[in-house]
């Protein structure tokens, strides 16, 4: 059975791109979220195997969403999607419980490597 993924990003473009990369690698995208709040709600509802999380989102940012999700599920497998120069935020996200990160622009191979690492 393929792994389920929740894709969180406020840009449709990025969601499509990540979705494509993961779908083509055999993952199944079970949900998308445009805001941090939506991400937390959908996580509880869908219990996906993996979450990809943008850092900067309206209505609760990605880091806060990671914190909220990890409160209910410390084992949540969350992959942060960050842009160059956001290292401090990524560090914060990892401290909040994110398991790995990828840096935009995405190289599919790196995204998949990170996902493989998380799902181990």
């Amino acid at each position, binding site marked *: 059975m393929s792994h389920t993924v929740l894709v969180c990003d406020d840009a449709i473009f990025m969601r499509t*791109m990540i979705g*494509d*990369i993961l779908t*083509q*690698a*055999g993952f199944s995208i079970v949900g998308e979220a445009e805001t941090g709040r939506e991400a937390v709600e959908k996580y509880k509802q869908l219990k996906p195997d993996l979450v990809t999380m943008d850092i900067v989102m309206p209505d609760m940012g990605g880091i806060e969403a990671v914190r909220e999700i990890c409160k209910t599920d410390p084992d949540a497998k969350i992959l942060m999607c*960050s842009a*160059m120069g956001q*290292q*401090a935020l*990524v*560090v914060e996200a*990892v*401290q909040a419980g994110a*398991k*790995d*990160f990828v*840096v935009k622009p995405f*190289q*599919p*191979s790196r995204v*998949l*490597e*990170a996902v*493989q*690492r998380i799902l*181990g």
Partner: protein
Amino acid sequence: MMDRSRYAALFLSESREHLNLCNQLLLEWERDPKASEPVTGIFRAMHTLKGMAGAMGFTNLTELAHRTETLLDILRSAPGASIEFHDLLFRVVDALEAGVSQAVAGGDEQLDFRALLAELDDVSNSSPATGSWAVDTRARVEEPVGPEPGRVVRVAIRSDAPMRGARALIALRRAESLGRVTAVRPAPAGFEHEEFDGRFSFRLESESADHAVVEAIGSVGDVASVSFGEEAASTSAGATSAATGRSRQIRVDLARLDSLMNQVGELVVAKGRLAELITADGSPELQAVSARIGRVVGEMQTEVIQARMTPVWQVFDRFPRVVRDLSRQLGKRIAFQVEGEEIELDRALLDEIGDPLLHLLRNAVDHGIEPPTERKQQGKPPEGRIVLSASRDRSAVAIQVSDDGRGIDRARILAKAIKEGVVDKGTASLTDDQLLRVLARPGFSTATNVTDVSGRGVGMDAVVSRLRGLGGSLQFESTVGQGTTFTLRIPSTLAILRALLARVGSERYAVPLASVAETVEYVSSAVVSLHGKEALVLRDLVIPTVHLRERVGAEGARPPGRPPTLILEVGGQRAALVVDALVGQQEVVVEAFDGPSGMLPIFSGATILGDGEPVLILDPAALV
């Protein structure tokens, strides 16, 4: 946007990188069977390959990589693998190399690795099951607590990894999952500083075995090395990071660079034409704009040329394996050394020199280096030595293949050359250049017994003609009993050439400026006869003349006056090229050139001038 072919290309190139690395590490391992870094490196490469192949949905490839990885895991805990393992692993890498291409072409399902898998199983079963794929938990159960409660673990994040600090933190988190982590240096708070170089250490109190720790931390990605103790870090980091950290590049399809290069080439031509028109009748403003365009185009050209530069290791990397396989096959013992791997060449040239170098190396292994017994008889060490080195030589790159073998036996070649009617019967000796030409003739081989490795007599000829086409040259030095050095000289960039334009009859020809030592006037008083051939006396030099009119069969009368003469110099050889007139100097863009058969072998390419007229580029090496 993200189609499958793009993935396929990425998968292919990365897999090849990893497999190449495997080859190198296998060689390293073979030299030093007790070393643990190569095994870990191969293990990691297999793991990555497995992951990538899995992501691509190539089940057969994934299976082979996975089973190899499992075996390597066992071997890691039982080091000192026998030579059969190495051979098996070399064959696995070969199979994966072929398999990767086939899988990308849609043939993963047809891949049949059953024989190899069975062999891997045999080895796995005959080895003590001290390791396992799931090292982590097992190690905890089976291995006793080490004598020391804590170890200092040193981790280096790859220098080209994005956000090394964040990656380091993840590695630290992973370590914490293995046991108690203390004394982290530098403090994690400093990880997010830009100056953090990705190296850190900590004390780990854990029951996990060393290899389990290495694997766990290595698995967080972008980890160049994991080592133990206070000092070990630098050595182990050197081994892996040198291999993985030297490619701080983005991947660009070569076709794109080619296209960009062509576009810039046309821009250069158009720029030249524009400048000509404006000089003829242009306002000062126009001239200023044209000059500015000229500068920008010039810079663009430099940038594109730079972007195409590729370090030679990309081609050299496969040679250690080739030399090893060949020498084993031929029963020779050879230490192979590579120098100057970082020297850069235009990508297109790099692709072209692979085959010539392979020929030279094969020749060195097959004909150069003697079998161990013969070497001993001659008082040489039984292990022969072949050095492949690259170095910069002004605007060219010199690549040398030298061996300490038997050298080229001039007498034997002369005898053979006379017998085959290549040189006159009375010839007493061959000059180096003659020798090379003789060696380079199709069908001329001095191998006493033709092996399937070389000796079919096409090699040297292929080398020389390939090089000429690239504007390069090949020279050699050889001492009987001591060895041979071939020096291959090629321009480091291919596409744009500074050329002198000369006219003969109604045609113009481009002569690469790099080969023109000077220009003089052809004065009949300076002309002498040298061995029945015409030559020009210039200061204390006597230089053979070449009348381009005669060579190209130009029609019409020569213009009156003293014809200009170009003194060509290539690798110490000279010729005086007599032309009708000099037209000027300019940069020309070399176009791919496939001369029709029967064409004079004195041209190396063609170009299109600013006025849209094509001209041929003379090959100075063919004239001297």
